[in-house]
């Protein structure tokens, strides 16, 4: 389990004050919070609800609808593996199995040392050169099991890596 740490002060307030007056402000606000904190903590829901004059249920409903938003802190790096058909056609299913085995976790989970969170993703738009994996904002193509292991080794040795 990832320890819940104190939320860095100011991020939620800044996200709200920067975006609240834009039309359709909710997604931009949620993105700004997640970009700043890595996730959207429970206390953000009440603050955003109040700022937008919406109910907390409405904010929580939006939050839970979108796969991108997370309500728990991620590991130092988020590793996304493409599950979609073009990657399946070139060994994506085997890579998924290998990744889970190598990291010892399933999807939507974080390794015990809090370094890596594993997430599925449905298409990274790199469909001619799969299987594809995204780590942070970087996409990797033609990821074999060996390449995957090398990427993971790099993440595991890089203690201070924060995306």
């Amino acid at each position: 389990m990832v320890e819940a740490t104190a939320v860095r002060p100011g991020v939620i307030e800044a996200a709200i004050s920067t975006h609240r007056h834009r039309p359709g402000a909710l997604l931009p606000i949620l993105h700004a919070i997640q970009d700043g904190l890595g996730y959207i903590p429970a206390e953000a829901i009440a603050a955003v609800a109040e700022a937008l004059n919406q109910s907390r249920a409405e904010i929580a409903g939006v939050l839970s609808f979108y796969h991108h938003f997370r309500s728990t802190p991620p590991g130092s790096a988020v590793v996304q593996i493409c599950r979609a058909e073009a990657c399946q056609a070139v060994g994506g299913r085997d890579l998924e199995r290998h990744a889970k085995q190598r990291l010892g976790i399933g999807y939507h989970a974080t390794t015990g040392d809090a370094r890596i969170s594993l997430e599925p993703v449905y298409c990274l738009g790199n469909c001619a050169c799969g299987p594809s994996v995204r780590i942070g904002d970087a996409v990797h193509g033609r990821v074999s099991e060996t390449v995957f292991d090398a990427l993971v080794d790099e993440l595991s040795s890089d203690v201070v890596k924060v995306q």
Partner: protein
Amino acid sequence: MKVVRIFVPSDTTALSLGADAVAAAVEHEARAREIDLQLVRNGSRGLSWLEPLVEVETPAGRVAYGPVRAEDVNGLFEAGLCSGASQHALFQGRPEDIPFLRKQQRLTFSRLGLSDPLSLDDYIELGGFQGLARALTMDKEDIVRWVTDSGLRGRGGAAFPTGIKWQTVLKAPSSQKYVVCNADEGDSGTFADRLVMECDPYMLVEGMIIAGLAVGATQGYIYLRSEYPLAQRIMNEAIERASQAGYLGEDLCGSGYRFDLEVRLGAGAYICGEETALLESLEGKRGMVRVKPPLPAVKGLFGQPTIVNNVLSLAAVPFILDRGPQTYADCGMGRSRGTLPFQLAGNIARGGLVELAFGATLRELLYDFGGGSRSGRPLRAVQVGGPLGAYLPETQWDTPLDYEAFAAMGAMLGHGGIVAFDDTVDLRQQARFAMEFCAVESCGKCTPCRIGSTRGVEVIDQLAVDPEGNLALLEELCETMTDGSLCAMGGMTPFPVLSAVRHFPEDFNTQRESTDSRESV
């Protein structure tokens, strides 16, 4: 000393295969050899299998090498890369002579990969903003008529005539109208939108400005999927630079018109590619599909008349305005006019972007362009049009690629994504995945989609126990989903499922261990 210009592409695919390391190696080698290097990070030509495709400018034109890895760079310099030497295993000759590119009809993608995507000067030099210049001299009605006359149909998949949509928005009375670009390119096997945004972003900006002029909209939004961080960076920068140069904002190009443009990020929901779910999402809500009518053209974003067009539809507009509707309409067949950027993906030897007039066949794409499978094994099934598209067996590969011809055989061209599978594919597993994907991505509004997809996964898992009874059940379930869902998500998930059952029955009849049922999402 003579300056040597070397191009190393910087789109997602090139980067995913090490283009940054290649660029660094090129700089390193040039420095070590005291070569006066001008390194250009261009976009991709769309020849994905050759990425990173390094090009060098020579007196005889540009010469390409690929696929280049960082460790190849030293050898390339040794072999005489700077003068375009042909004595190297990675030598590809002039890019435009590579058959994959030579045989294409690039109207929309004519500039792809030629230059630095963010250079406004390069865009203008390569013919950019000519469509806008023409549009600024025309009446709204005439712009809309040109788009109608070009025969352009929505390239997102629904293939609705773009000009008719614009006409509806133009006629809708309102003081505030919107242009929304659907850049939620979620279909597996598609990356043409991404290439537009990463490699020729001003083309999309130009197309959207023209759309705004045509219907009197002053605000545009690009709804971009969060899986495309590089496209987000490039589009934001392109909008910033276009604004600085006076192409956006108040009194654009001194015309007295206003058009503002903004990128809005999605959040990983496939359903937001459906236009009404997209509008809900833009408004800051869950991406739930709306009942139509009212059409978005009448009552769209924030209740106002709204053009919602795919990236490729809007990207086709500058060409149509620049060269005239007839030039565009002269390509194609039947009611499918112009070109469609096909995307060759999956298990294919030469994957990438193939812009062709409608009417070619899948077989030509798979073999003449694609070169067969990447694995070297025989191709067995092809999924066209994304996760809601049918799996086609070889007997259907000679059908012309045309909206109507595909619809007639229970398939669709969609966004032009073509995913090839070799003979190791298990179509039962693919059918199961189609249902599973629908269960994960359904917005939940319609019961047949929300519940039916989950039941679909279960029924397919039960095929091993009682193939006959469960196949009948699966057919019935698919019928319910098709007839009882509001949008294409539930309505078309049966396409891949039933096409797999019909065309590949041998994968469903065998009693096999259900291995994938243990795997969780």
